[in-house]
């Protein structure tokens, strides 16, 4: 029972970090109609940013997080300028290719800068495990869940309650109509990339403590975030967050019970099955063949 609770906590923490990645995915997809294939590598970059900042600045993990998020938002703007805006009038495949290229550059830049050895970032909450009878809860896992919750809710608040959020949603729904209404559409798209990269960076900084970070860590992440989004359905941010929690829980439990490989293989198989049977997502609206 105790093991199950601890596994569940770890699974939720992992899922919470995935949720940040998945939300970024949905933001960019809705704003541009194109998938950002570099999203996983942006997570990796966030992990390295946290690790490098920790080595340079004598600050606690929690204080480093805003710096990582800000840096990553700038990187997101750079990604949009390089990989999206020059190609916005071309087929979506061109943006897939350009973001794959960005991912390749990020991976190999990280390899050149930091080498192939795994790095670790400082914990956001460094203390002894919280004991509650036989139950020992990892403070880092709790902190990850808390921070991810704050960021996800902040994102939801931004989109639902602010003028900026309304402009972002209008741009995602109908770009031409939004432009006709005087919304600065390109700025909104750039902002979507910045937000997506910031969320990915936060996820990277949070994951890099427990799971380490390597230059190629992004590849598996993009699939897992995509699986979360596919489970949740493309239209919905809440669906993506729920999907991410499910993926994290599933992965943690199966990895503990069988093996990490089995967990990944089953997840990928599940992705294929969902795409075949319900491409609109398990809970989602009927998005069908939308690009």
């Amino acid at each position, binding site marked *: 029972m105790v093991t199950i609770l601890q596994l569940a906590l770890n699974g939720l923490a992992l899922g919470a970090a995935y949720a940040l990645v998945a939300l970024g995915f949905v933001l960019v*997809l809705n704003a541009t109609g*194109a*998938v950002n*294939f570099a999203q996983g590598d942006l997570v990796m970059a966030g992990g390295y940013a946290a690790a490098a900042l920790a080595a340079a600045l004598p600050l606690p993990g929690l204080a480093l997080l805003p710096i990582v998020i800000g840096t990553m938002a700038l990187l997101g703007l750079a990604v949009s300028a*390089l*990989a999206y805006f*020059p*190609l916005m009038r*071309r*087929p*979506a*495949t*061109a943006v*897939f*290719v*350009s973001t*794959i*290229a*960005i*991912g*390749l*550059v990020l*991976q*190999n*830049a990280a*390899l*050149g800068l930091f080498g192939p050895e795994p790095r670790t970032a400082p914990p956001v909450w460094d203390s002894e495990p919280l004991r509650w009878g036989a139950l020992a809860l990892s403070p880092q896992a709790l902190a990850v869940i808390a921070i991810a919750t704050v960021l996800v809710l902040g994102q939801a608040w931004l989109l639902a309650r602010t003028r900026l959020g309304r402009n972002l949603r209008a741009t995602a729904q109908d770009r031409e109509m939004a432009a006709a209404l005087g919304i600065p559409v390109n700025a909104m798209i750039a902002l979507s990339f910045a937000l997506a990269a910031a969320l990915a960076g936060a996820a990277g900084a949070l994951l890099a403590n427990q799971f380490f970070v390597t230059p*190629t860590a992004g*590849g*598996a992440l993009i*699939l897992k975030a*995509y699986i979360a989004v*596919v489970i949740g359905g493309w239209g919905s941010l809440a669906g993506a967050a729920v999907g991410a929690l499910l993926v994290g829980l599933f992965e943690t439990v199966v990895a503990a019970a069988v093996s990490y*490989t089995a967990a*990944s*293989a089953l997840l*990928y*198989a599940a*992705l*294929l099955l969902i*795409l*075949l049977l319900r*491409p609109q997502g398990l809970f989602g609206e009927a998005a069908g*063949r*939308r*690009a």
Partner: protein
Amino acid sequence: MTVADTRASARHGLGDDALWTVLLLAALAAYAGTRASPYDLRVLALAGCQALLVLGYQFIFGHAGALSLAQGAFFGLGAYVTAILGARYHWGFAATFPLSILAPLALAAVVAVPLLRLASHYFALATLGLAQVALLLVVNAGDWTGGALGLTGVPGIVILGEAVPRGLPLAAAVWGIVALGAWLSWRVTHGITGTAYAVLRTDPLAAAATGLAQTRLRFSAFLLSAAYAGAAGALQAHTVGVVSSETLEFSVMVTCLAMTVIGGSTRIAGALLGALLLTYLPEWLRFLEGHALLAYGAALLAMIILAPEGIAGVLGRAFAGRRRAPDLPEPVPAPPQESRSATLEARSLSKRFGGVLALDRVDLVIEPGEILGLIGPNGSGKTTLANVISGLVPADDGVMRLGSTGLRGLSAEKIALAGIARGFQTPALPPSLSVLELVALARASAAGKIGFLSSLLGRDAGKGRRRFEAEALDLLGRVGISSEADRPCGTLPAALAWRVELARALALDPGIIILDEPAAGLGEREQAELGAALREIAGHGIALLVIEHNMPFLLPTAHRIVVLDQGRVIAKGRPAEVVRDPSVIAAYLGRESLPA
């Protein structure tokens, strides 16, 4: 991509492509035979394996326009089949090579059925998932695959009972197979089928309106890409002698993607150039050592932004621009088809979009040779009705028949070939194709001469292509636009675009043609010409369903008129009667005045 560029590529650039390819292969042969060291020859053989991989990838990524991320997995599968059968069971090349091609082909065929239904990123990520599963399987099935360490001792190539030694013979054998692959690729893509792929990837609506079997074309492209990848993997296994899980890693896939984009994604010379360049770049630039992928990534980004047609495309454009377009053939009337004239009957068609009932139990009958006008206020469901009849939007309920053929549930291209041709409010003409190419494509499509087998037999090229072009020219004459045959569709003004849409529709030997506001943007004289053309077509027994707001044009042209309002038929009859119908006047007055 400029209009001039693709026009050149489509009409005579591929002849240039064959020339470039032959020149390139000859230069490689001269280099290999004279100056290359044993090490150089090994690198050359490896470049050949990559060239074959890229040639295959061009089918699905370049021609079909779908981002598959499974090409690396097919490559790895081919390599492992060769390694397991050759190194473990000592099977010979004559058995392992065909099996290394068949295994990925079979896998592709199995996964294609569900995967190819997926569009855009769904397809990309599903193929990525497939590749990840393959990698996990290979790493974890260590008893068979040697796990992460891989398999050593892959035997060499044996051709006609003779072992092919390393060095020049091996490089020659690999490049011989590359040349064979290049020939097959040229065969499949240089005819009208190649044009069909260009329309398929750039303009799905135009592809449907031209009757192209999109799923079948994608399917054969995916299978071809898998088969080439398997052959490339097998050859690499023979060349290196070792196969490990590295062959399945994502870096193989992105290197292939970079080679394809940088070389040029639809030209054969591009596949060879891309593979050679990216294989030799780290050899030439030693400082790139360990950072080759960083350079590939940067180059990939630069090329997709600055020169998406690739190096071969840039070269092709630079030289093809100076060549004269080939002379047009003499027009030849299309052979008289068995009469397609049949009555179109729609009963109780309904279509709902969310909470809006766009079509509410619509009944419609169109007799052969009849011009039926379809009018109604904006948003009354006219275009939805046209889309439902032409299969672009599935009906929720009701019956549709053309003669005795049931139409419900057929794809748009099948309906187009069954005899219901379509023109669009915004003409669906692929901008880079010339008028003649488009209409010849429709002729070939109607004749069923597009696809892998037809192109392999050469029925869509050479004499076959000339025949379709001659028939297309005859049709262009019928709609009065032969003088514009070589003009790219993207440069046509509205006054000419309707003629091209009409010519394409006629090219499909239709029983019925549906036109959506053909008179929009036309001057009075052009409207009169359009009316005369429609009457001439109807005179041959072809029915016309014309959606129109322009009453001065429609009333004298149409035999009968049907009025839609809020998805329902509210009146039908002779034009003069319909415009006096009180319910029609009320429907228009409710929103706008009757446009008369």
